[in-house]
């Protein structure tokens, strides 16, 4: 059974919850029609407040994907941020909330999970290009605050580096929880309230007003230059005032991540305790941090439900 065959019976009209049926090139139900455009179901009319992600993931659609690299950074990061293993995910129905270009959906599907990848941005076109050949991947453009799925649909939900880009990180996290089956597992990573993220938060409201192409052109100019002179105290001073990444995984990776860090409309920062409290107050159990990434938290929906 393909991911599409598993997911289609679970599709519902966002908000009203009425069932959806596939009719030709659309999902129809409850007086609503959600078309497939370029093969991708669209449950929203536009990319709303995530314009920058539409730009960046269609520009860097391959930069972070393991299938185009030898060093598998996405798999390493996926393991560190979720604690998931191939044995744990194999055969499970998994929601990737904020799929982007598909870097983590690629890992989960390679490990044998059936993956539904959703994103509000036109990044879905990048992830669709990257993963359309996999029968165990289903991609849709949808708002993670109003997803088109029945309650208790998924065995596993993960959202890595996404929820802090919504208008309210905690509220959007809580909107994912009803989609989890009893006993299902959720893992998230959000920006920590550490120094570089807090400094970046001060910049974001100014930088995100720049046209994407202009700021991106600047990132392409800036990152190679500061990388070349990384040992200079002046570059250190610039980096303290304007923190930019240096992952050691190539200049394209750092250009992408610099653009990613400064261009979004929303940039929430959170303490590890705060994130754990969201999990516990939502009634999740086995709440823990799977690694020393501070704001990676994983928990399980109680079974039976409290």
């Amino acid at each position: 059974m393909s991911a599409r065959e598993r997911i289609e019976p679970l599709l519902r009209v966002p908000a009203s919850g009425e069932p959806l049926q596939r009719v030709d090139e659309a999902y129809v139900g409850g007086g609503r029609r959600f078309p497939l455009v370029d093969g991708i179901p669209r449950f929203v009319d536009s990319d709303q407040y995530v314009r920058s992600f539409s730009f960046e993931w269609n520009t860097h659609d391959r930069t972070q994907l393991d299938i185009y690299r030898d060093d598998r950074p996405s798999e390493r990061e996926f393991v560190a941020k979720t604690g998931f293993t191939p044995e744990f995910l194999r055969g499970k129905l998994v929601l990737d909330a904020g799929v982007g270009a598909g870097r983590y959906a690629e890992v989960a599907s390679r490990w044998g999970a059936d993956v539904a990848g959703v994103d509000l941005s036109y990044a879905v076109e990048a992830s669709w290009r990257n993963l359309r050949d996999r029968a165990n991947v289903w991609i849709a453009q949808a708002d993670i605050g109003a997803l088109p799925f029945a309650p208790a649909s998924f065995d596993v939900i993960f959202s890595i580096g996404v929820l802090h880009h919504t208008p309210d990180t905690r509220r959007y996290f809580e909107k994912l929880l009803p989609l989890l089956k009893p006993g299902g597992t959720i893992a998230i990573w959000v920006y920590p309230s550490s120094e570089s993220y807090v400094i970046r938060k001060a910049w974001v409201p100014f930088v995100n007003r720049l046209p994407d192409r202009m700021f991106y052109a600047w990132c392409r100019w800036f990152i190679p230059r500061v990388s070349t002179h990384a040992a200079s105290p002046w570059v250190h001073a610039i980096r303290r005032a304007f923190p930019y990444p240096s992952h050691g995984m190539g200049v394209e990776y750092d250009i992408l991540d610099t653009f990613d860090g400064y261009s979004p409309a929303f940039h929430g920062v959170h303490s590890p305790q705060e994130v754990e409290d969201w999990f516990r107050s939502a009634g999740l159990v086995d709440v823990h941090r799977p690694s020393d990434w501070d704001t990676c938290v994983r928990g399980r929906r109680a079974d039976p439900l409290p």
Partner: protein
Amino acid sequence: MSAGGRVAAGLSVVLVSVYLLAVGAWLVITRRIPAPGLRRVLRAAVRPPYAGRLAGIRHETGACHVAPLPAHLLSDQESVSSLALFEDGRALGPAHAAHDDIRRLGGGRFSHWGAAIYFSASDGSDPGSNGRSYEVREQRGAKR
């Protein structure tokens, strides 16, 4: 890239650089991002360089440990720290490391941040109990 594209990219770089410099100045002046006061910078330039052994070391996260330092030293939080860190007399580094890198990678990375130093032992051991001495020295004018 076409000639027109190169011109547009060059113009973008100039305009965005000017804009970001103005925004950066505004963020510093309004203290939304850390920066030292002029008086503090001048004092730091004329007083004798600081040197001292680390004490009160506590574990932070992963490979990262924290020790207090005098608050008057200019740190990476608001300026550019000129502190070098030594483990039994041997220089550690890189300095100015990201705190997440210190936590996850260790290897002697350190960061002088506010009135504290975030650092890691060269071999990932606990600096509070590995029997080695840890000393910091201000190295003005040195390129590190």
